[in-house]
């Protein structure tokens, strides 16, 4: 008997509405584990590479980890995958909340959707009942309204909903999918794929219970993980502020993106910090399913109330575009959550425009009279409304920064801070070199979560020596050894994603190691997930992802960083004078991987 897994894969053709449940194959799962590994392997096997991401042929996957929905803390995530409309390569994004566990309790490990519905629909999964329901009356509604309306019409407040907002309907290339109103699959435009398939939402109700292969053994391991989390030195701080603690932390080491990464220091950081948010607007903690960190927060301001924001949203709508107004950022967080639009990618389009205006490359006339002076809140609000509806100027901005810059030309491409079409996150790589390497090589583009090499920020020199024999790995400014670190944490990040666990625990807090994960998997599922088997599965997924991306058209020249980070030293702060020697680092990374000089796995 297969324990802990949901037990089925649901296949659904949105064109015909036909679905079938297939039993989960344990032998296959041993090679892919679950979650992101399961999704990208499915894509590798079944997706025609040259299709248009917005065509019915694109695949849309929702994958959940084997231990999600069980006793294992912080494993509440699920991953949505498909060919990204924003980047044209492997796309996926994970979110926590309650949908992943509910899918498991309904009996599923993965939903595989293809085709396109004629009419707007939403998918209802109630245990083994599968139904495409009319969503004509939901089209145009925002995410909160959609979730509430579905719960009301099904007369069940416990239904879990993943929904898109107007941004997804209007095919904004970086539209998101939200669970529980606020847990966002934010990156690479998975909400845009939903929109292209006329799929407004997925609603799930599972009344089953998940069994465990070795209940006492598994309980003990889960308690050990709980203890590791609660006794972690950063526990209290993370519980109080979540990721927003990074505002002051990153400013302290001179890498807080300010005015579009022109500076790494923000003079008004105290006004827009996680500390101030917690003190002034937070009313309570929020958490994903079965988490004991409770790092999310519910806030109330004069104008709005919502959950969040996370650091990336907070920074994107404060220092990154020159806005010294916390309440404004909270209002934008609320707006983006409701409309279903990525804060990082939308924020980068604005940062790019503001810098182009500052440098005189573009002016008001290029932007239909909108004033892109740093920190102009009216422009930000007006533009976001236009992007969501693809009105006027918003239509071009809805395509993403790389496309936008190519359209305007005049040397503005240099200021599109992206890798492989994905706008980079809010951490200046010049002061965190392993992160720089991660952005360059990440299989979904300019992103940190593919490796999250947090270790380089810890100054644990002896531990670096013990683990890898290279002391410099614990020095954020050194580039030596960072290829080794990234190769390691890339596997650790994938492991976290395959278990659909939280990266805060898996990587930032350095709590999940391979050996421990192997024990958890064996006790939970009863399958023979030896450490060797787990390692082979992870390496297999990373290699297949790379090969798939090469099929999608990437090559070694795209494993790089925007010129700012390689040629313009930071001018102030604790990372003053730094740039990222990216070519050397990428070359070393290929060598550590055993890939050839063109970045191709030798197979």
């Amino acid at each position, binding site marked *: 008997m297969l324990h802990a897994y949901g037990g089925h894969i649901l296949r659904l053709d949105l064109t015909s509405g036909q679905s079938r449940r297939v039993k989960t194959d344990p032998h296959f799962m041993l090679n892919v584990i679950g979650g992101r590994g399961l999704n990208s392997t499915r894509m590798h096997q079944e997706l025609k590479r040259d299709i248009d991401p917005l065509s019915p042929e694109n695949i849309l996957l929702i994958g959940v980890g084997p231990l999600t929905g069980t006793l294992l*803390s912080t494993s509440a995530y699920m991953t949505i995958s498909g060919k990204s409309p924003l980047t044209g390569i492997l796309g996926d994004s994970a979110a926590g909340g309650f949908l992943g566990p509910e899918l498991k309790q309904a009996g599923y490990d993965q939903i595989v959707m293809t085709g396109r519905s004629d009419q707007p629909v939403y998918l209802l999964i109630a245990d083994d009942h599968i139904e495409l329901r009319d969503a004509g009356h939901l089209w145009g509604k925002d995410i909160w309204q959609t979730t*509430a309306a579905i719960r009301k019409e099904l007369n069940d407040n416990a239904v879990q909903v993943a929904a898109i907002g107007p941004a997804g309907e209007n095919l904004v290339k970086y539209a998101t999918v939200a669970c529980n109103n606020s847990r966002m699959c934010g990156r690479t435009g998975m909400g845009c794929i939903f929109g292209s398939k006329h799929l407004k939402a997925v609603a799930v109700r599972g*009344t089953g219970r998940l069994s465990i292969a070795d209940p006492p053994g598994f309980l003990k391991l889960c308690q050990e993980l709980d203890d590791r989390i609660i006794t972690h030195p950063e526990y209290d701080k993370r519980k109080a502020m979540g990721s927003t603690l990074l505002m002051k932390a990153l400013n302290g080491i001179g890498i807080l993106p300010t005015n579009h990464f022109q500076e790494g220091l923000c003079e008004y950081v105290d006004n827009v910090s996680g500390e101030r948010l917690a003190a002034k607007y937070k*009313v309570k903690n929020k958490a994903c399913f*079965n988490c004991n960190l409770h790092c999310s927060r519910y806030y*109330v301001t004069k104008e709005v109330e919502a959950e969040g924001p996370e650091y990336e949203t907070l920074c994107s709508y404060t220092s990154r575009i020159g806005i010294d107004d916390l309440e404004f950022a909270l209002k934008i967080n609320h707006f983006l959550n409701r409309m279903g639009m990525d804060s990082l990618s939308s924020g980068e389009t604005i940062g790019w425009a503001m810098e182009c205006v500052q440098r005189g490359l573009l002016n008001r006339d290029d932007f239909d009279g909108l004033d892109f002076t740093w920190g102009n809140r009216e422009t930000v609000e007006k533009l976001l409304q236009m992007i969501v509806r693809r009105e006027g100027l918003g239509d071009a901005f809805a395509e993403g920064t790389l496309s936008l810059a190519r359209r305007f030309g005049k040397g503005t491409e240099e200021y599109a801070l992206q890798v492989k079409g994905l706008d980079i996150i809010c951490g200046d790589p010049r002061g965190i070199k392993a992160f720089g390497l991660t952005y360059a090589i990440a299989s979904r583009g300019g992103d940190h979560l593919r490796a999250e090499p947090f270790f380089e920020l810890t100054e644990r020199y002896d531990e670096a020596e013990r683990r890898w024999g290279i002391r410099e790995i614990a020095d954020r400014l050194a580039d030596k050894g960072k290829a080794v670190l990234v190769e390691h944490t890339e596997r650790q990040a994938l492991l976290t994603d395959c278990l659909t666990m939280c990266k805060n625990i898996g990587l930032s807090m350095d709590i999940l190691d391979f050996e421990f994960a192997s024990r958890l998997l064996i006790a939970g599922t009863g399958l023979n997930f030896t450490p060797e088997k787990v390692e082979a599965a992870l390496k297999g997924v990373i290699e297949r992802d790379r090969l798939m991306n090469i099929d999608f058209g990437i090559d070694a020249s795209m494993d790089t960083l925007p010129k700012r980070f390689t040629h313009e030293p930071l001018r102030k702060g604790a990372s003053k004078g730094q740039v990222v020697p990216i070519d050397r680092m990428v070359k070393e990374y290929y060598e550590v991987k055993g890939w050839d000089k063109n970045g191709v796995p030798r197979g």
Partner: protein
Amino acid sequence: MITLELEKCSGCSRCEVHCSFFHSGKIGRSGARIKVVKIEDLGIDYPVVCQHCQERYCTKCPENAIEVGHLGQIIVSPTLCTACGTCEIMCPVGAIQLFEDVAYVCDLCGGDPRCVHACTMDAIHFEPQVTEAVSLTEFKKGSRRLNPEEKRLRYAMACSQVLREQWISERSG
């Protein structure tokens, strides 16, 4: 009885998870005798569990399958219970519910409630001396036509009004 500090609850549902696992070795909301109601638009998370009410509505069991234990907890006899659903209909707040042909309700884990241990927000407490302190008459009216999930939602809505008002006055004044 199990008591709640509503303002602390993050909605993580660890109470549910550990309740279900302790009672059956399996994990699922259906197997939990404490169920968290999430009112997402309002930021409220409310674990609903048997309140040891003064009225003891559920004990009007036609099969005499329900008795009150020495800690005030409800004890259901799985052999006498015929899953007729009377208790589920009688409870005004959805704290007792049929699942797999037997009524599920908090039994205080025999005096050491696992939900209290599981809660790392310190939001739920076990107060053994407190029992039959709560009257649910105000929720009885109109509850017959509601299913347990609806009753829990109605109860959570009503019980979170004060906290909501407090938030609004403190944070947006």
